[in-house]
């Protein structure tokens, strides 16, 4: 009974948010003179075409990893806006290392992946260090580190350093990684699904198990919930903050790895920016829960894939961004409302638990 209740409320919040978003966007569409129903149908049918689905799944993997990176930070009340810089620097250096080596595949692929993880972690730990030792907000330092990472990459991408000019586009790019550093794709639904998706799934499982089942995860969550209580309980809380920042950066370093290993095999400035904000939004939407983040990430990728089709049909594609923005606000709000409702229910139960025994005492009152 109680379990059913909790399950109901856990689902009620996101459903209410989706419903609100659909209504709100419909109103906007009506004001623009477009038919909401046919617009939603268009998004749904375009997004669910097989070849688009595969592209969406590949995008989902990247978004998902950015979301998990952000979620780890959230558990520590850290706002890792530096995912962008961490991921691009990580992929860039991983590409450079991959391009400069030619080991057997079973070594080359892990080498590239681990390089990304380590670089992401190291870059993030600068912000972690400044936070713990100098009490500098990780938001400020990470924004600066993002800019520094961009400058660093552009500097190092110059021809004669680590970059090459030419290739298909006119973009500066790193030397192409030899075939031993390529990760095969799965051919499904007429598309190519990066097999890196399995790594992403493993990361999600690991994230959940470590956080919820291990002593380390307990210490991490305890520090996030109450720094002072964790410290009093014997946790080295500042170190925990530092480690969490580094872990968040490590996962950020995996973002975009699928594309590098299975598609581009080189880093160029064509790698997208903006994963930090997306990751944070997805962690928020998915309540820092790995499955929640996965659903949110797919939803995101789905909408974005469908956006160009809207323009072709006379509906501004910006409607997709509007949907994304609305759903974040609606979700955050509805979860807060559910939290209040369940808290009130709980307080009522606590009140009931306290009351009867007081009554029993009262009967024993002396004459």
């Amino acid at each position, binding site marked *: 009974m109680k379990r059913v209740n909790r399950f109901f409320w856990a689902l009620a919040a996101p459903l209410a948010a989706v419903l609100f978003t659909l209504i709100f966007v419909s109103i906007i569409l009506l004001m623009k003179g477009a038919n909401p129903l046919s617009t939603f149908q268009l998004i749904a049918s375009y997004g669910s075409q097989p070849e688009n689905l595969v592209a969406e799944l590949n995008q989902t993997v990247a978004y998902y990893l950015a979301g998990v990176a952000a979620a780890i930070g959230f558990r520590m009340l850290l706002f890792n806006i530096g995912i962008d810089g961490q991921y691009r620097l990580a992929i860039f250096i991983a590409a450079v290392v991959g391009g400069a080596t030619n080991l057997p595949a079973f070594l080359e692929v892990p080498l590239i992946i681990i390089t990304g993880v380590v670089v992401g972690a190291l870059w993030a730990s600068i912000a972690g260090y400044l936070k713990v030792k100098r009490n500098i907000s990780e938001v400020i330092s990470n924004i600066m580190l993002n800019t520094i990472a961009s400058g660093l990459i552009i500097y190092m991408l110059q021809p004669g350093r680590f970059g090459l000019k030419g290739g298909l586009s006119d973009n500066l790019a790193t030397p192409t990684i030899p075939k031993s550093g390529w990760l095969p794709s799965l051919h499904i639904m007429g598309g190519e699904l990066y097999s890196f998706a399995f790594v992403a799934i493993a990361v999600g499982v690991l994230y959940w198990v470590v956080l919820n*089942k*291990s*002593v*380390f*995860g*307990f*210490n991490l*969550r*305890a520090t996030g*919930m*109450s720094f*002072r*209580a*964790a*410290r*009093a*309980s*014997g*946790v*080295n809380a500042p170190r925990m903050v530092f480690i969490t920042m580094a872990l968040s950066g490590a996962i950020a370093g995996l973002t975009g790895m699928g594309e590098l290993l299975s598609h581009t095999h080189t880093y160029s400035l064509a790698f997208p920016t903006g994963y930090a904000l997306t990751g944070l939004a997805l962690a928020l939407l998915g309540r820092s829960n790995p499955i929640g983040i996965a659903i949110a990430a797919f939803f995101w990728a789905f909408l974005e894939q469908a956006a160009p089709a809207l323009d072709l049909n006379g509906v501004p594609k910006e409607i997709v961004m509007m949907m994304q923005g609305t759903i974040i606000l609606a979700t955050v709000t509805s979860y807060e409302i559910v939290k209040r409702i369940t*808290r*009130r229910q*709980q*307080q*009522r*139960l*606590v*009140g*009931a*638990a*306290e*009351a009867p*025994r*007081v009554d029993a*005492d*009262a009967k*024993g*009152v*002396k004459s």
Partner: protein
Amino acid sequence: MSVAIELKGIEKNYPGVVANHDVEITIAKGNIHAIIGENGAGKSTLMKILYGMVKPDAGTIAIFESPATIKSPQDAIGLGIGMVHQHFMLADNATVLENIVLGSEPMKAKVVVDYAKAREHLQNIIKTYGLDINPDDLVADLGVGVRQRVEIAKVLFRGAKILILDEPTAVLVPQEVDDLFKNLKGLTKNGLTIIFISHKLDEVMAIADSITVMRQGTTVANLVPAKTNKKELAEYMIGGELPSPRPATTKPREEKVLVVTNASANDRTGREILHSINLEIHAGEILGLAGVEGNGQSELIELIMGLVKPDAGSVVTVGLDTQDSTLREIRDHGVGYIPQDRQRDGLMMAATLWENRILGHQQTKPMSNGIWIDKGAAKSDSERIIKEFDVRTPSNAVLANALSGGNQQKFIVGREMSGDPKMLIAAQPTRGVDVGAQAIIWDHLIEARRNGTGVLLVSADLDELFTLSDRIAVIFRGTIVDYLDPRKTTPEQLGLAMTGEKIA
């Protein structure tokens, strides 16, 4: 005799909980009227109703014999009701005068604060009521007692004729309490009416002209001190006989759980905060640490737990030199810690009770097994605590923030006593908990002592120190100034020692 406040049939319901019902109180003008009751008896809800912060569901309020509806604190102030909160609301880096005018500044031409006028008004108040404060002192330099007088002056400045004092003595030492009581008498002589909320029965008997006892949201008795006694008051409060702690019959053992030798510690700026401390606690002994808050108690606790390393001297806690041990090692070696600020240092408020059971024991059996948390053990052991310590909760899956303060505290005490620690640091273990919870906690502290735990009891409650301690150490300005035998010391002597006076 004219009536200042008359409350009739006041009722307030929150979903599932009746906070107040059938409240009947009549308070005569010029009286000090005490309202006593356990936590959760409905005192604070009633005061919030009177101060306009909560709207009652039923009942009538009459102020100075005319019916009143109080919709906001502004209304209350307009009717002459002022509230002195338990926690002072003063800006440290402003003067007394600036703090007092803040929010009700007399204006010159509607743009400039008329400090001359404010000063004159304040001087009048100081003179009339005999409040010993200086308008030009910086609040940061003032002691607790003076700050409280500033708070009172602040309320009077706004024209209050009725003062509500919420647990005003909680933060004071005995001498300061005496000063406060003198001031309160002075106020009533000038026609003010005072509502005095407390659960310290001694004080209520000493200061009140009349007493109302509340229990379970309603008024159960209206009494005058001359015709009642502490025992009767306590029984009205809890609705039954007061459990008395079992007398301690065991002797401390030879073995020492704490040895602090000439330890000094500096804060980050290099200022010495603890000076040459010598302290020993034996197994099976309760050492009381008395002192006015802010005299180095929290720093001493951090020193003992190894969070702060001594700059000179040595600290050996449960056999570990803190200089080269981490807090984790020290805690896992058998140190329990009941922190003073339970909600910030003792609990993860947004986590369930069973998760909170793990806190502090996350790296020892049975709460964990190698690198994994043992959820089953945490759940079953939290059940045990809930039973043994009478934590009133529907289940161990309730979030800590849903429980009342007393129940949170009982849970923390239960947790910290799990696994029979060699040493227990109990900082204000019963502050703000009701009489019933206090009795349970005291009982368990005595039990721990019998089982050979060495207890450091840091407390501002002299009653508690006298009831439980084998010895009392007095801390003043970062150093131990005296050791007292509770059987040969009076509360007045202890109070004096706490202010740095040597007992002859």
